[in-house]
């Protein structure tokens, strides 16, 4: 009787077993786990230095500062203050990201003292002339992609999950991204970006991860290489700080005009 019961129940139990999950379910699970482990940092501030390199290797440096507010049940709010090049100093960019509807974005132009609501439809365009697109640096909500687990792989000595993700938001410049997710940190260590023609466009490699507040892993440096143009951008994160008490009020249009 016991045996009969087991035989009857076993097929019903099987789908719960990890090995029987579809590749799509596995991919989504990995994304969910990564998201779950990165909850609770409340707010984050950092300096960002970008070094833009053209095909000839000539460099140009961009400095800015970014503050981000974790928002429960919605995408993050962020404020980017541009410090250089000197002619755009004081320009600031406020964005409210959303998982399913379009992001809200405002740009503050200091010469005119004008706050402009701008279209957030431009996801794939370059951020400050760099090889990073807006969609590469905005907050990564689970619902922005569909996922598929590909394989396990050891990358530079680290065990990784390799998953593929497909942008679900409009106006993405990519058909798909292949993400190498570190198994220990549950953070990406490498991403291959495929353009609208499904040709390899860019590769992003993360370096110098450090753990903050005993939980949250953040990269020290990100290297983006454009394979089609030969241009590259180094994005260096400096002076990370967390839970400094930022509030919604620090991410409104009054604060945008006050950002220095």
């Amino acid at each position, binding site marked *: 009787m016991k045996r009969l019961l087991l035989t009857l129940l076993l097929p019903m139990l099987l789908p719960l077993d990890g090995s029987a999950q579809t590749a799509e379910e596995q991919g989504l699970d990995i994304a969910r786990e990564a998201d779950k482990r990165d909850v609770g940092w409340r707010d984050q501030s950092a*300096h960002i*230095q970008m070094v*833009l390199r*053209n095909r000839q290797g000539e460099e*140009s*440096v961009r*400095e800015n*500062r970014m503050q981000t507010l974790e928002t429960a049940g919605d995408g993050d709010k962020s404020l980017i*203050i541009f*410090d*250089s*090049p*000197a*002619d*755009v*100093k*004081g320009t600031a960019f406020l964005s409210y990201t959303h998982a399913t509807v*379009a992001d*809200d974005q*405002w740009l503050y132009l200091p010469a*005119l*003292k*004008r*706050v*402009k*609501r*701008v*279209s*957030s*439809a*431009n996801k*794939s*365009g*370059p951020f400050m*002339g760099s090889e990073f697109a807006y969609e590469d640096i905005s907050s990564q909500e689970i619902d922005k992609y569909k996922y598929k687990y590909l394989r396990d792989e050891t990358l530079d000595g680290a065990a990784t999950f390799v998953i593929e993700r497909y942008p679900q938001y*409009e*106006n993405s*410049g990519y058909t798909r991204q292949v993400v190498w997710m570190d198994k220990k940190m549950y953070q990406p260590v490498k991403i291959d970006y495929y*353009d*609208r023609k499904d040709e390899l466009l860019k590769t992003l490699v993360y370096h110098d991860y450090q753990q903050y507040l005993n939980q949250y892993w953040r990269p020290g440096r990100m290297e983006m290489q454009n394979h089609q143009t030969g241009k590259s951008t180094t994005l260096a994160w*400096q*002076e990370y700080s967390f839970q400094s008490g930022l*509030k919604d*009020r620090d991410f*409104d*249009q*009054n*604060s945008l005009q*006050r950002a*220095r």
Partner: protein
Amino acid sequence: MGVALLLPMQGLAAGPWSGSFSTQWRGYSHAGDGAGDTDYTSVAVEPDYSTQWLDRRLLFTFEGFARGGSRDSGSNHADLRVFSLNYAADAWELRAGMRKVFWGVTESQHLVDIVNQTDLVEGMDGEEKLGQPMLDLALIGEWGTLDMYVLPYFRPRTYPAADGRPFLGLPVDTDHPLYESADGDRHVDYAARWYKSIAAWDLGLSYFAGTAREPRLLPQVDATGASLRPYYYQMRQSALDAQATYGSWLWKLEAVYRQTDEPAYGAATAGLEYTFADIAGSGVDLGVVLEYLYDERGSQSAAMFADDTMLGLRLALNDTAGSEALLGVIYDNGGDGHTLSLEASRRVGDHWKISLQGLAFASSAADAPLYALRDEDQLQLDLAYHW
């Protein structure tokens, strides 16, 4: 080792001082009717300082402006654009001093924007503003932001001198302005604006009571000859500005209702902007702007744009040099003329910026305000060093 580690960090903090030095060349295609020349060169400096205290709640900002070296006396001028303290609490902010404030959403003209006086010597497009002394209390809540302004001192509009350009047919007697109010430039003006973003909508409602920023220019003849004398009347302006942002579409409206010593009237600018972003994966954006400009007073009045259509093209290469250009034409629907404008700029290296601005006017109707500018087509080149 310690020093080596510290040095790059110091470069990170945004220094309190920044600004620009620039040199400008401005040329005119026609000799014109006045005593002006066909080209002018000048230099300008615009220093900028800001610092914060009390855990960033108290902010001081200074922005100066000075232009010199030009052959015409009017272009050489200095102004305190901003000299201001801003205290930020959770539910309010208090701002006091010389400040600049911008209201509005449209591109072709700024009807709603009224707090600051226009510096017409610096630019005929009206985008350059003089600093305005003010006290601004902003109340901030879930219901939006309500700014309440006291503007204790009036600043008259700057106009090119008799030996400068553009020439408006007669020189403007800026030394002897007339005021409707017996208080003259000491008349205290009041203004308020409420604004809020609701999903895809950005809404603003505003009110202004005080001295009009744009004077009537009254012809006069005195011992020195004929000139135009600015008359600053009292005005009450109620206004709405709204923008809806849906995908690549921006829908914009500015509407004003003005009560003066003459019959009250309404004026509006309504239009749209569509951006073709990242064209074919090139990173290049092309925006198309279409706006309709309306003034109830009609084209036989002081209204520059009474029944006009503006078509603009905005190109941004999004390259390392930040190259961009804006081409616009404002066409009088009654066939009285048109205004062409071109603005283009790009960075050269990390500190230099080169800008080109062109304006061309065509007018066939001698009674249209635009007619006075028919010989004032100009091209302006600026080379600036930013630090």
